[in-house]
């Protein structure tokens, strides 16, 4: 279970109109309970598409004929390295491209944010008939290019530097598991191209105060050496921020909340067990100042022992 390239993606920012590329996808190790073994590296690439026709303007659900369907495509590279059996480091770097199917607004594209997580499993013991593991994770993400966050919903990200802390617990019973985690994300203030903007009052500055975000994730399903299949639910809540005004455009410091459900799988080939495929889909079931996105993504990962020895792998 700890050997293979496990799921990695984290293709987007924490909330909001980029929710379509939510971090709830199945193939991602910063939210699952799977560790890479010492000296193993797993790298891969993912493609994702996310689109929404309806969105919440504050709490009011609406469509926008001048946007049609807002969509984002993503290609990301990501990796996970086992420093120790119980200490991993992960990274992710996505390229994004946005589009509105109607209206006149120009889509944007570019490299978004580089994120790096450290994942530590200090505890893993038999409890009852199963195994209980506890994790602590710390992550940072920062913009990897000079994209603008001030053209939502067509901006590719919010351009804040984020520091996240997460605690996670996993219980495995036979081939079934359940994982729960809670995350607090600190977001630093951002700068926009304008030197004045309105939130609930007029600000004469180019600096925007970014509220922090709390998120919770629960996932459960089947987990064996070659197949992982799971369902999950994720909730992001922005701790502050303001609602989009009636018929206004979204803004980076909006109160962007979303509850997302999804399902995913990861399949590791039996004859080439370094190679794994992942796929998943998510849907936003409730939100505020966020698009009701449907997202799908797929990826391929390859794992190997950086010391050159693949013995562990060969044993399955």
């Amino acid at each position, binding site marked *: 279970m700890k050997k293979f390239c496990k799921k990695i993606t984290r293709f987007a920012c924490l909330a909001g109109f980029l929710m379509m590329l939510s971090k709830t996808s199945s193939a991602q190790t910063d939210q699952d309970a799977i560790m890479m073994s010492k000296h193993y590296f797993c790298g891969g690439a993912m493609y994702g598409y996310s689109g929404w026709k309806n969105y919440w303007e504050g709490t009011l659900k609406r469509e926008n004929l001048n946007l049609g369907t807002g969509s984002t495509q993503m290609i990301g590279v990501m990796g996970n390295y086992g420093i120790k059996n119980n200490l991993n480091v992960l990274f992710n770097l996505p390229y994004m491209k946005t589009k509105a199917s109607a209206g006149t607004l*120009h889509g944007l594209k570019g490299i978004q944010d580089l994120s790096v997580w450290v994942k530590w499993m200090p505890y893993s013991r038999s409890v009852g008939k199963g195994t209980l593991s506890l994790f602590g994770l710390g992550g940072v993400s920062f913009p990897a290019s000079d994209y*603008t966050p001030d053209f939502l919903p067509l901006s590719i990200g919010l351009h804040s530097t984020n520091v996240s802390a997460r605690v996670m617990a996993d219980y495995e019973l036979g081939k079934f598991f359940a994982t729960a985690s809670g995350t607090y994300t600190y977001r630093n203030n951002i700068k926009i191209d304008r030197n004045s903007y309105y939130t609930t009052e007029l600000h*004469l*500055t180019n600096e925007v105060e970014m509220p922090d975000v709390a998120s919770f994730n629960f996932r459960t399903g089947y987990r064996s050496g070659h197949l992982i299949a799971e369902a999950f639910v994720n909730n992001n809540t922005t701790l502050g921020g303001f609602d989009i005004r009636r*018929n206004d*455009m979204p803004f980076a410091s909006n109160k962007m909340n979303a509850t997302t459900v999804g399902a995913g799988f990861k399949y590791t080939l039996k004859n080439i067990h370094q190679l794994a495929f992942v796929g998943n889909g998510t849907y936003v079931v409730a939100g505020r100042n966020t698009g009701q996105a449907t997202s799908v993504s797929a990826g391929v990962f390859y794992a190997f022992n950086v010391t050159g020895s693949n013995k562990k792998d060969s044993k399955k």
Partner: protein
Amino acid sequence: MKKISFLTFTLLAVLMVIQISCSKNIEGRTDKLAALSPANIDLEAGKWKLVLLSRPDSFAVAAPAAITLPGYIGELNEVKGLQFNMTSVQKDNIRYWSAGSVLRWNETMRDLVAKHNLPPYQNEDGTYPIPNSANPFNYPQFPFSNPPFAARAYAYVSAAQYDALVACWYYKKLYNRAAPYKVDSTINANSIMINKTDLPSYPSEQAVLAGVTAELMKAFFPTEIAEINQKVDEAKTATMASGACTRSDWTAGESLGRQIASVFSGRGRGDNTSKAVGTQVQWDSLATACSAKGETPWISLEIPHRNPMLPFFGNVKPFLFDSLTVVNVLRPGPPPSTGSDQMKKETQEVADYVKNPTRENIDLVHFWADGAGTYTPPGHWDAIAAEDFILQNYSEVRWARNMALLNMSLMDAAIVCWNTKYFYFNPRPTQMDPSIKTITGIPNFPSYISGHSTFSGAAAEILGHIIPSRAADYNQMASDASLSRIVGGLHYRSDCSVGLETGKKVGDYAIKRAMTDGAE
């Protein structure tokens, strides 16, 4: 489990350090200003040329009671009471207003414009509701403070503030009552957050400004009356507690301001703005007239098509010249014909810019966009002007005079621009070539001439006269604002170059006025 609690502790500690070391409080550029410190109190400003009033004493202000009478002693005690045990909130309030009342009321105007600058959402049948000032709280709330509305609101408030302060200065000199901080040593000792001058305090200039501004603001933003009244109360308490005026100074000033506002409201009711929206039949006739000339008429690029923004605003009565001048002198000749090679060439130029917009151009476009939800281009120029005026140490009356010159230019620029737009009814680049996607929203009115360019040309011209050392900078800003509309996909080059020229001509009328108004 020890490890777990250690981990949790570490994470919490890290988060706390982050919270403490990175305070997220943001500070606006004008949040912490020094108190206004006029280089010249402009004691003779009561003689300056008025905009609408025929005389500075058109509205009588009774002579104040002598400062030796018990009533006045009581007023001084009221000031001392306010200065006694002041809370930090009260001190902040004094500091806020001490930077200058013209500045703070202008900022409040910009705040209200940005708050109300949102296009109404469509009806079920694809038509759009029109905000109704008789029923302002119903959606869509009145007003939709779009650029022409905003330009006019800024101009009326600024021009009225100017006339009101000229009248105020007239009476100040006439009655020559010293400020409380000059009369009473205790008040003087406690007046530490403002600059003390020899300007007479009756009637209070802050009170005149509060009265005239509040009265007009209530008409422009009828849903905000409670907030506006609150603001007047804050200004009143701050000014009295600062030691700059007594209750009678305030009362006389506020009353004078409110009376002068009525002259401007009266003009506003008859300046043709009430007919600026038009009807479906009139809108259709604009397109028909354009087609009759063999040109492609503008159509709204919004879905569903939105009625054009204030198509008859071009008939509003200007401040700096008459309506005939708009049509016969200032309205420029036609844009390139929609069928011409020149138009094809200019459309292609726009298409080339937006195909793969550079980051630099996105920055330029967004910096100058001033679209929905903002204080509009006139508000942007007010912000530019205000932040420069702060450095000039003007008296309140000179502040008002310069803001009035600027905002009358911007309103008149809007009138000339709107007149031109709807006379030619020229399509946007995206209508000519739907592959042109824009880097900010396309405003819902015809293309020729560019509003941003006209506003910016006018503003740069008058501001360059007011602060000659900055003239080159203002012209550069105007060129940037103008260019931003081409590279953003909103306008053809000829919209922008002709817009800038036309705006400058409007600004020249303001310069003519400035050279003869007695303030230079």
